[in-house]
């Protein structure tokens, strides 16, 4: 088979897993199988851009932050890498309910990259190489390896593609366009062709970034400072974050800014037709915002430091592909940025990606056995979404090699599960970003309980060390012990207790109640309970929070749990992979074709395909039962 491919040398070592790309998806996809004991090769276009953040220097927020916590519980590297290198961290949404709290951290781009690169370099089972993968070697619909631009054939049993925005990347700045990857790196121009040859239909997506400006040219006194919070970390296992934090700054656009944009509308690639890729709605360029929401008097801008050893500032909210001279003009209208020196101009980038409908829930392609893909190539956007997929793809490549069942997280277990389910089942028409409103069991998928949801899985995979696992078990025990105490301990309406409740602005106590009932009151905190119950267990802040959430919102949580039970019934109902939908003559044609295309794993997944009705599911159930009985008869 190798004779069908042009190469100069066959590399002597044969790998278990080859990962194409070393961005956020690629790093996780490489580390997971290596840590699971397999031989991994990671190829990157540029070694100086491992785990690079080409867009904003931050991680997290609601939904995205949840994913980072899940990555931690499953033994991924992103959260710890961030904790070690970040400049600032805050918790967002604290007033909107525990399920939507979201950690947001400011990254030091350089340090983030350096540490992650070092982790990869030091991983014994992992080889990191600067190579441009150009051709996928496929034999009988099975992946065999990769041929590079410089003519080396690397043989691998599984391949994970994590090319981000590199595939036929095209950068657009006003009237200027050129072929390039993110941050004007060398694009991967050939791999797209190889994918198309195999039979993938590629699509064009678009994303963009704002200009970066020099710190010395910014007048921070005209802006609002935003500081970090002490003690928070992304990883459940990192020590509390106590380093000095770097601030971000807020400023706003105004009528003058909008005028400049309107005046130069015709020079905007977005409106003049130069850009034909589909961009994300949640990450609109400033020109898009001004044109679509003309009534909005101002748009918020957020100045984020790119790192400690650089003066570059990222102007979040000012993503643009307008000509560079217009970018200068725009900046000159904004308070504090009047004299801003652009160091890198904002740009839009178009790139090839696949249709995630072509993937299975384990992130393996349906067309080629052993070929996985993760990250932006699957139509998502965001470092966190990429890393989450990379981790799952890497884990599943490893599990397949070990002959084990794939790891498929469902929608009730993790945001990562929601993410992959939606990509594979529904596809996406724009770069997909995670939002908490996409999760129907949001209250259960909290960022505070990601470890309780997933750490067991991470441990069983071998991605969580014994030491970390033991810490987790201790925490779990503390939670259970404390909950039990709250359930059993009785508080009586003594004058002192009444007085205390009164001082907490809490309602009177008429008869003896369990301590849990007191904690249920919105105005009562865990620490207040000490007064009523001196023997109250002394536990960590995390345990207190966990216990409080589980007690205060029990009614709501229980309701969602019973919904999940219902959901699981359909999810656990697997559809045989070899099912022949075209033989289901009694099913509506539209439903049959959709099912044939998506190949759902379970009845639950089937029911989420648009165009498949409950009646179609009923028909499918009967058909499956028929098959089962026939098979039984044959035995």
């Amino acid at each position: 088979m190798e004779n069908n491919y042009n190469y100069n040398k066959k590399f002597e070592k044969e790998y278990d897993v080859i990962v194409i790309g070393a961005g956020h998806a690629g790093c996780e996809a490489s580390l997971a199988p290596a840590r699971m004991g397999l031989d991994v090769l990671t190829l990157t276009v540029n070694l100086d851009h491992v785990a690079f953040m080409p867009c904003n220097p931050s991680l997290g927020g609601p939904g995205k932050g949840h994913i980072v916590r899940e990555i931690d519980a499953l033994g991924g590297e992103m959260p710890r890498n961030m904790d070690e290198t970040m400049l600032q961290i805050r918790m967002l949404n604290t007033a909107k309910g525990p399920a939507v709290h979201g950690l947001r951290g400011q990254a030091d781009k350089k340090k983030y990259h350096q540490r992650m690169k070092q982790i990869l370099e030091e991983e014994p089972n992992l080889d990191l190489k600067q190579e441009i993968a150009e051709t996928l070697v496929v034999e009988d619909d099975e992946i065999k390896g990769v041929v590079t631009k410089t003519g080396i054939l690397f043989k691998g049993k599984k391949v994970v593609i994590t090319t981000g925005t590199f595939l036929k990347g095209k950068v657009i700045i006003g009237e200027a366009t050129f072929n390039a990857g993110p941050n004007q790196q060398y694009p991967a121009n050939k791999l797209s062709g190889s994918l198309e040859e195999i039979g993938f239909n590629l699509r064009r997506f678009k994303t963009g970034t704002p200009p970066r400006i020099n710190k010395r040219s910014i007048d921070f006194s005209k802006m609002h400072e935003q500081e970090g919070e002490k003690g928070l970390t992304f990883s459940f296992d990192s020590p509390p974050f106590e380093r000095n934090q770097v601030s971000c700054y807020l400023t706003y656009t105004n009528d003058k800014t909008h005028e400049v944009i309107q005046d130069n509308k015709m020079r905007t690639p977005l409106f003049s037709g130069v850009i034909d890729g589909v961009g994300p709605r949640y990450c609109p360029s400033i020109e898009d915002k001004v044109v679509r929401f003309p009534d909005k008097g101002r748009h918020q801008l957020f100045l984020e430091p790119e790192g400690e050893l650089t003066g570059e500032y990222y102007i979040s909210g000012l993503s643009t592909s307008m000509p560079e001279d217009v970018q200068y003009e725009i900046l000159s209208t904004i308070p504090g940025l009047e004299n801003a020196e652009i160091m890198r101009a904002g740009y839009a980038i178009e790139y090839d990606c696949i249709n995630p409908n072509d993937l299975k829930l384990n992130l393996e392609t349906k067309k080629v056995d052993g070929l996985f893909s993760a990250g932006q190539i699957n139509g998502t956007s965001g470092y966190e979404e990429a890393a989450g997929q990379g981790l799952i793809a890497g884990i599943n490549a490893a599990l397949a090699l070990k002959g084990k069942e794939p790891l498929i997280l469902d929608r009730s277990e993790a945001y990562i599960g929601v993410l992959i389910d939606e990509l594979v089942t529904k596809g996406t028409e724009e770069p997909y970003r995670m939002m908490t409103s996409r999760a129907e069991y949001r209250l259960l998928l909290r960022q505070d309980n990601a470890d309780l949801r997933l750490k067991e899985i991470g441990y069983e995979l071998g991605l969580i060390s014994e030491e970390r696992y033991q810490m987790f078990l201790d925490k779990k025990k503390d939670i259970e012990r404390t909950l039990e105490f709250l359930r059993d301990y009785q508080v009586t309406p003594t004058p002192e207790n009444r007085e205390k409740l009164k001082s907490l602005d809490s309602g009177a106590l008429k008869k003896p109640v369990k301590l849990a009932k007191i904690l249920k009151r919105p105005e009562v905190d865990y620490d207040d309970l000490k007064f009523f119950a001196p023997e109250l267990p002394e536990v960590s802040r995390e345990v207190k929070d966990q216990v409080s959430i589980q007690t205060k919102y029990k009614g709501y949580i229980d309701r969602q749990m019973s919904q999940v039970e219902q959901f699981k019934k359909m999810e656990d109902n697997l559809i045989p992979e070899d099912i022949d939908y075209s033989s289901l003559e009694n099913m509506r044609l539209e439903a049959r074709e959709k099912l044939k295309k998506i190949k759902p794993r379970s009845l639950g997944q089937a029911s989420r395909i648009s165009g498949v009705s409950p009646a179609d599911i009923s028909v499918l159930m009967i058909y499956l039962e028929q098959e089962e009985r026939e098979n039984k008869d044959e035995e």
Partner: protein
Amino acid sequence: MTNMKEDTISAIATPFGTSGTGKVRISGPDAINIGSKIFEASSGIDIYEADSHTAHHGYVVNPKTGKTVDEVLAIVMIKPRSFTGENVLEFDCHGGMVPLEAVLELTLEHGARMAEPGEFSRRAFMNGKLDMAQAEAIIDVINSKTEKSLSIAMEQLKGGLSEKVNKVKDDVMELLAHLEASIDFPEDEIEGFDSNQLEERLKEIKEPIQKLIKTAKQGKLYQEGIKTVIVGKPNVGKSSLLNYLLQENRAIVTDVPGTTRDVIEEYINLDGIPLKVIDTAGVRESEDVVEKIGVEKTRESLKKADLVLMMLDVSQGLTEEDIKVYNLIKEQHTIVVVNKTDLDENIDFDELEEQFKEHPLLWTSVKEEKGMEELKNTILEEIFQEQINVDSDVMVTKVRHRDALNKAFESIEKVEQSLENGMPYDFLTIDLKDVLFYLSSITGETVTDDIIDQIFSDFCLGK
């Protein structure tokens, strides 16, 4: 597959007619439990304790109001010895369509879900109760019934309902998108609500749902009964007619929720069709009837009548008073009843025919019970001529809509409760999403992606 545990479903399992009997079937793990909440056996036993394959006489009673819905025979079948292979409870009702529907609604209120088309058969098949040869037949049933119920649902929605539901749905969606946007984009400038504003917004959602429930209940034929007014000058036999109809056909169901009984209203179950008879015989005989009817209030109630029975007396002839009464009601659906044929005629047959040519004219003697069958048939004809055909699927669709509206209402009340308890946004969205889900189930749409679309169309978000 066969061991898949399912929820409990309920439906009317017999075709309807005006014959007035039918079966409500509940199937699933909670079937007997749900039944026991709404059934009172004459023997006093709790049906939950009953042996399999036993029948129990008793009453379906609404536990909230304590009112009897129908006299029924409850048949208990414990799994796997039932049609579906699950626990099954069947109520054989005999009060006609209204009680059937009311019993079904009670089961839905107490934890059952309305069965999908062909779902009983599907479950029976899955549980090995039907053989392979029947599989195709079940699929056909599912497909044809789904198609039919879809077309009926569409038909029903053509009226004002879908517009009204969509209006409320839009309001819910807008509020939800606002809350979700502020949750998912905390760093964007999205104005929040204070609790008064939220309260106001919730009220704006709740009130129209409440109204819709009321309207849905006015599926007149089945719920409120046909408002029937008996008019005529004094002493033409109005009370006798009412008494006759009452003793023959006293309705079992009178506790239709949301309606109150007052002294001049009586419910009559005419071959399964409920008539709410408004008895102007309550007016004192000595007073001038026309004058009495002339009172605005009475005039109003006449105007609202679905059916008027205008009574004449053969022996008194056609008087000026009769004509005056007639002029008030001639625009209505009216049946002219010429009573007291047992007495000497003092009336010009041709004159009558001419005078009342636009309405059916019947000759009766209530006293001798003559012409009464004909009268009943004419009443039914009048009703059916005007009303939609009595089609089981239409009725089922209506129950489905009402069920969805009731659940939407319950959910919006939960949102209000959460707000009152000072819960943060996230908790409001939980039940608000349910409101949206139930409203959407009426119009047959899915919503998840819509919310996200709405977020981006309403707000300028992201960086």
